[in-house]
């Protein structure tokens, strides 16, 4: 198991954001996390990588209990994340952004090694030609790729992807899906939040569904898609769902 989430509960004041969330992820797996808006998906990511400490429950990463550890320590242990709302370090160049990932990620590279790792990661996501540009000058699709490159340059064991496909056009989605597959084939486990259903259904080995802070279903993509609870809470129309699975 690369990641074990056990009974994770989180409250913000009176709001129960997460309730007893429990799941495991095996090594090398792409695990899809879906659910309606406001279900707590990004919050769950925040608990997993140490931005928030859970009120109750445990996060076990590669056999080590990392519950309550600050996010920079979690990053050092080999968990990297691409944010939903892109967060480029605007004043730095694209390459420098990615170097931050390499310098402070799992391997803690020196500056010169980080520069060459950054160039590799940028090539991997198709941004090689823009390395010297200020990152603020990228468009949204490129910023998403930058987020991914930065996470990759950390050489993580586990990659958390928060809606990296959102806002991309169909061609860009196809390219990004191919990139994500390649990353998995290199041995990196991936936990991804995604709303683009076709993509997440086709790419995930396993899917878990969150609704109102609770896991309501888990299983293979086809099992989840035909689960009545999931249809009601998230997918909506059953016919639409069937069509989704055919495509």
């Amino acid at each position, binding site marked *: 198991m690369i990641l074990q989430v056990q009974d994770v509960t989180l409250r913000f004041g009176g709001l129960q954001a997460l309730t007893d969330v429990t799941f495991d992820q095996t090594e090398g797996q792409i695990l899809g996390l879906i659910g309606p808006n406001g279900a707590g998906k990004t919050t769950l990511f925040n608990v997993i*990588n140490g*931005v928030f400490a859970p009120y109750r429950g445990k996060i076990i990463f590669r056999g080590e209990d990392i519950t309550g550890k*600050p*996010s*920079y*320590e979690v*990053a*050092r242990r080999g968990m*990297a*994340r691409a*944010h939903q709302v892109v*967060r*480029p*370090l*605007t*004043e*730095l160049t694209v390459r*420098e952004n990615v*170097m*931050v*990932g390499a*310098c*402070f*990620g*799992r391997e*803690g590279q*020196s*500056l*010169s090694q*980080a520069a060459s790792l950054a160039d590799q990661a940028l090539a991997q996501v198709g941004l090689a030609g823009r390395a010297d540009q200020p990152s603020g000058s990228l468009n949204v699709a490129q910023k998403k790729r930058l987020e991914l490159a*930065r996470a990759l340059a*950390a050489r993580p064991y586990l990659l958390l992807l928060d809606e990296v496909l959102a806002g991309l056009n169909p061609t860009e989605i196809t390219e990004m899906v191919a990139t994500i597959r390649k990353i998995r084939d290199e041995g990196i486990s991936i936990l991804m939040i995604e709303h683009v259903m076709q993509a997440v259904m086709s790419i995930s080995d396993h899917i878990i569904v969150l609704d109102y802070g609770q896991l309501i279903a888990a299983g293979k993509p086809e099992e989840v898609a035909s689960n009545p609870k999931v249809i009601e809470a998230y997918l909506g129309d059953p016919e639409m769902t069937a069509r989704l699975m055919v495509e």
Partner: protein
Amino acid sequence: MKFWRQPGFWLPLVIVLLWGGTVLVLRQDTVRETAFTVLMFMALASSLNILLGYTGYVSFGHIVFFGLGGYTGFYLISEQGWPLLLASLAGGALSGFIALLVGLAVLRLRGAYFALATIGINEAARAFVSNFGPFGGATGLFVNFAAYEKYGGAGQALWTTFTFLWVTTLVVLVVSYLVKHSRFGLGLQAIREDEDAAMVMGVNAPRAKTITYVISAFFPGIIGTLYFFKNGNVEPGDAFQLHMSIEMLVMVMLGGMGTVLGPMVGATAYQGLRGYLLTSPIFKDLHLAVAGLILLLIILFVPAGAVGWVRGRLPALRRVLE
């Protein structure tokens, strides 16, 4: 990318080396006094820039480290008979230590809250020193003239002090460059751009900020010792002047925060302007108001400062104008 092969590393150092060298050769008291003031503000602004420019944290009360370090160094020279070098290093060390304690407490705060806390610290230090017997309370301390004798009399002591300041300025500039171009500095710049994202990428922000705060407090402590030793006395009103903190900020912003050269340019330009304003009949009481106006205009129209503006326009010069 060896730093000693970079023109941007050498440019500020060569300027300060030549300038200080010229002053020492000319050996005129008035030239020395002007150079002392400008070098002092260059070094102070550069120290502040290590925190402000690289991490984006605004320290409004940075002059507290100049005051506390200066008091400590002055006390050690005047009352305990320490040599200038050791006393100024001790002043710096004390400022660094205070920054460590303060940093552990207030660097949890972000943005405006941090800036406000730093003002509070300056005022608290002033109140403390005004009531602290060994530092002479509200009247302060006067130098024991025997202290000057070791340096060949008061006149010679001033030259020695100037030389110390000159070397300190060079060291600050080297440190500023090395911090900016190190792995550590990359982490600081990541904090400046987005602290939460930086932490998610593995930057230990609390530790990095505290270390930076200590570095940026250490040098003002040394400079304070040199300044008050040169003046021959120290009192709370001179040591903790909030407006000097703000002038340091103006200098950093004017020259360009986050650059090595910027605080140098800003300090020189501001001192030049201030000299003019203080002697002009119209503006002599308004120089702080003018400083405030400049700060406002820079923030509105040239937030990158002079050096940042040139770097933005002429990318070819980036390796020279660090």
